């Protein structure tokens, strides 16, 4: 059964600099255009924002101003400057404490770095 790729959890500021792959970002919905199926996700603490293509996830439950978690693939436009996330999953996470979330995320990343294990897999 071919599974969708796992979305590695990232903050919006990191997501802007990744090249490719599946990611999971959390942010506040700043703008949502149903007709063009575009949305903008913003980080409440920094002013970074990310473009999201919502063709697979329309109609959206929740309105502008809610917190959303997006899982999808990062793609770069032909110009190469702004990344856009093709959302597979848009999840409304109103009520989530973003400060705690970021703290837990940092702890998790610290743990993964401290593992210092090189895994060599033979399939």
């Amino acid at each position, binding site marked *: *059964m071919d*599974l*969708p*790729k*796992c*979305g*590695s*959890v990232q903050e919006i500021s990191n997501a802007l600099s990744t090249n490719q792959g599946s990611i*999971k970002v959390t942010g506040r919905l700043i703008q949502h255009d149903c007709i063009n199926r575009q949305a903008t996700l913003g980080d409440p603490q920094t002013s970074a924002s990310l473009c999201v293509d919502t063709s697979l996830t329309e109609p959206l439950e929740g309105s502008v101003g809610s917190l959303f*978690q997006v*899982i999808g693939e990062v793609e770069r436009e032909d110009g190469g400057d702004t990344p856009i996330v093709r959302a*597979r*999953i*848009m*999840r409304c*996470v*109103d*009520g*989530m*404490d973003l400060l*705690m*979330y970021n*703290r*837990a*995320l940092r*702890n*998790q990343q*610290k*743990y993964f770095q401290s593992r*210092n*294990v*090189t*895994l*060599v*897999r*033979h*399939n």
Partner: protein
Amino acid sequence: MDVEEMEVDGTENHSLRNDKIPKTLCGLDFCFHVFNKMYIDDIIALEQCDVIPGMYWYKRHPIYKVDIMGVVVKRQENVRCFIYAVDDGTGVITCCCWKSRLHEQSSEDIETTLQRCRNLPEVLRKKMSGVLMSEAKKKEGYSLGDLVHIRGKIKIFRGEREVVASYHNKLEDPNMEIVRMSELPVLYRNLYDVDTLPKKVLEELSEMSGQRKGICHSEIVPELKKILVTFIEDQQPEEISVEHVSKIPGVTDLLKEVCWRGRMHERFIRLDIVHCKSISF
């Protein structure tokens, strides 16, 4: 799937690292008995145990039940079960949730059940309606993007590893994800990356297994049987006695390797030779 690890910053003794706990002592490890909260990435990378089917190793812990929490990214409905792909940020794994036969039979509505519970206090009635809602949701199945909590055994289905859920539930509160994300590094550091058995016990175990890899008490009888059968095929004697048997070179080697520790083992070996007398050729 083979996994080789090289630990750069390890405090464990390098000679002990590759020895697994013997099959008979797996039950001493708490990981054997509980639903282990783990990262999905690690569950996929678990090493299979060749001695016990259904058992997997994480470092030196035997694991066969896991507890995962993640977002549903793929959903498939079959006649008897739902198959979800769950993503927790580190990996994706399929989970199989069997449909409950009771739901097919019961035609009772939520309202009628609540009517019957009129006499209960307010708090319990609210709890009851919450439980009935989540049961109804389970019947319909979770949708894409739901945060689910699944506990179950690891099985291999059509070559792929999957979790067969014995408990599954949808979580409404998104903060539960944060709780799990903060719990896991602590669990890993304090429990999974550390050995359960004390160091002295592990050293003794590795000493006992180090002499002759793979030979333990329960394997002595089959080993003896093999040696005796080859002896009989080669020599074709008319009569065999216990003294004769203990003089066969293969048997003396076996005795030496197993009995290095002391007379206790010697006594076990003599008893086994006596048992061998009753083996029919």
